[in-house]
């Protein structure tokens, strides 16, 4: 009986062995480290709904930036289920720029980083007007035929409803395509 007990205890101990003994664990851990590595100076946009991560990149035109931009999406999040994080090294976003992402990520948190510390938190505010951010969903809108910037008025914030300044088409969140 005593031997059997000892065997059971040994098996149990093996089961609850700390994972650090696993040679693969370090690799996983270092990947995690990489995802959340700190930046010395720049902007961190967190709590982006996962499906809006790349829209945020498009809206802020981060593909045109020379510095390091880290994009992570489908991360586990308690509040959003899955979320995205975008880190922009060397660029401090302004309130006006931050507001542009309100249409796809109204609850995102934006941290301005200096010397590896959060220097400022900017709240995303839905603007009254969106200048040249969105493409009009009407194929017969003049903005899709002439070289002119688009302009949309925010008619309702929740649920989002915007109106094209030119063709007056109303668009909901699902119709939004970034220009």
């Amino acid at each position: 009986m005593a031997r059997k007990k000892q065997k059971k205890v040994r098996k149990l101990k093996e089961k609850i062995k700390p994972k650090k003994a696993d040679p693969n664990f370090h690799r996983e851990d270092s990947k995690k480290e990489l995802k959340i590595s700190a930046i010395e100076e720049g902007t961190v946009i967190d709590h982006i709904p996962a499906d809006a991560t790349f829209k945020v990149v498009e809206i802020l035109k981060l593909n045109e930036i020379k510095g390091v931009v880290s994009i992570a999406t489908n991360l586990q999040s308690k509040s959003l289920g899955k979320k995205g994080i975008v880190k922009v090294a060397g660029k401090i976003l302004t309130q006006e720029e931050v507001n542009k992402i309100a249409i796809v990520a109204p609850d995102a948190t934006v941290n301005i980083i200096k010397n590896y510390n959060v220097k400022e938190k900017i709240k995303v505010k839905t603007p009254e007007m969106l200048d040249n951010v969105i493409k009009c969903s009407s194929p017969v809108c003049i903005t899709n035929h002439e070289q002119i910037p688009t302009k949309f008025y925010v008619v309702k914030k929740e649920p989002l409803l915007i109106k094209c300044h030119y063709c007056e088409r109303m668009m909901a969140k699902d119709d939004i395509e970034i220009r």
Partner: protein
Amino acid sequence: MDFKNRDIISINDFSKEELLYVLKVARQIESKPRSNILKGKIMAALFFEPSTRTRLSFTSSMEQLGGEIIGFSSANVTSIQKGESLWDTIKMTEQYADILVIRHPLEGSARLAAEAANVPVINGGDGANQHPTQTLLDMYTIQKIKGKLDNLHIGFVGDLKYGRTVHSLAMALAHFNPTFYFIAPDELQMPENYLDALFEKKIRYHKTSDLSRFSKELDVLYVTRIQKERFPDPLEYEKFKGVYRIDEQFLQNVKKDMKIMHPLPRVDEIDKEVDKTQHAAYFEQAANGIPVRKALLALVLGKVK
């Protein structure tokens, strides 16, 4: 109220007071049909797509007020064919005229033209979007035939999905406490965003596909053509053409003073026999384009205050 140099682009840009003011000026002008108040002024009619009533009534209005007209009635004869942008076409034509009237198939084109031009621009229809002078003449007609705009029961029948005249008129009449009846097959019903806007303004409305259901309630029935050119799919058009027909039989169950309006052209939605009844108001409606367009030309050119 000063309308001098103002662009007339969308009925949504007008307040209730401004709408009533334009109608008042139109009444004054109608009582004195000929004058030379626009002598020496030139109107450029920039019609990038075909139009009969709008172009002819703007032309006639300008001439009756002593003004002159230049322009074109098809994009085929312009530099657009050579690839010139609308912006450049407007920048060029504004050098030759005191006022521009534009009709263009693309939505939002009139707003863009107004931004490009330093002279006032009147929208004569931008695709399926806005046609403010039509809305104003519709309101003018209702005011004339019913003696008022307030508290009327107004039915709209036909293509309520694509029909810009219906959308604009419903929004403009929302200032006057109406009750609306939207009569159309489900697929061609009034778009949700307009219904939401009416709901927010606390306007009563009913939706039905049955033309006779509310016939006894109506003061005005605004009939529209099922517009073939607005359907992305021709098969969809075939399904709906001829779905409603206003004839003498229908008129047996309406109020004696119920009036029928139609922005024209009609196809088969109003039987010709209706023309001679006291209910027909659509030709008078077309004629009202003259005083309303005269009023707008005179107002924006600063010749009437």
